[in-house]
């Protein structure tokens, strides 16, 4: 819920009270966030923030890992070994980010596309 609230606060800071036509939130697969729970919380958090939220989508983005063998690969399981060398000497270098990757609002200004 606090993540949903952070998202809506950040969006509100950017757009004011504008009507949000479309929003896509990218969630890293290693973030520990459950997309269903986030979806539910986003609706509630938007209401609390006074945002009118139209269509929105949550996209899971694979994490990244860099193995000691040099292999860089997409990782979604913290227990899975490096697919190339089978070793576990790898660092997870991404996959816990939360990014509002697409935000389309109703605007009085010029149309951009």
């Amino acid at each position, binding site marked *: 819920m*606090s993540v949903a609230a952070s998202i809506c606060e*950040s969006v509100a800071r950017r757009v004011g009270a504008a009507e949000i036509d479309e929003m896509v939130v990218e969630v890293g697969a290693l973030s520990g966030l459950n997309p269903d729970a986030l979806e539910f919380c986003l609706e509630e958090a938007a209401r609390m923030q006074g945002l009118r939220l139209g269509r929105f989508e949550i996209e899971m983005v694979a994490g990244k890992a860099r193995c000691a063998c040099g292999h860089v690969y997409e990782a979604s399981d913290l*227990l899975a070994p490096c697919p190339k060398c089978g070793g576990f000497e790898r660092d997870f270098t991404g996959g816990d980010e*939360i*990014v*509002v990757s697409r*935000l389309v*609002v*109703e605007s009085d200004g010029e149309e*951009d596309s």
Partner: protein
Amino acid sequence: MAKKTLEKIVIDKGEKIALANRAVIDRAGALALNLIGSPGCGKTTLLERTIAELHGPSNGQPELQVAVIEGDVQTTFDRDRIAAAGAPATQIETAGACRLDAAMVAKALADFPLDGVDLLVIENVGNLICPCGPKLGEHLKVAVVSTPEGDEKPAKYPTVFARADAAVFTKIDLLPHLDYDLDRAISDCRKINSRLKVFALSARTGEGVSEWIGYLRTLHRAQQGGG
């Protein structure tokens, strides 16, 4: 009305407040740990033992001065236990929240002087999942997991072990009474995080405690030396 597509927003999950907390802790020259583990895994007992080891006899000068910020949903029981063990302690009652966040810690730090503190331990709310997310301003995360919880816990709850710098397996004095495969649990931890420092101890009998205390001494020395 026209439609306008805006630039993407990277969500700040409290990192700014966590960095401000870190600055306060660094100014005091303290090393800060974020202790994460299930309810009843022995976090507070581990701290009582750690304080006893690092403070030494109550009339002497502590080898390392420990201070503790306790996080619980409700009550000040743990703060009182830490205070009885001889370390300054303050309590955050989260009123329902399942983990601490940087803002709660900032509020606690505002009324909790760190002068002379070498080791600040932030004991998170008992929970193996939610506290993995928010950064609090700590230097290191320490996962605490007890043998009665079962040896499959690292595999089932990997995130905390992935993000932790060290893991402490507690209550190993109970191993003769349990079907617990410590090697399996440790090997799963290493698969998740090959850099993880692992300790196995009993705060009650003292077995394995000296390795843990040695680790804290090393960390403290490294911090004093390396800034």
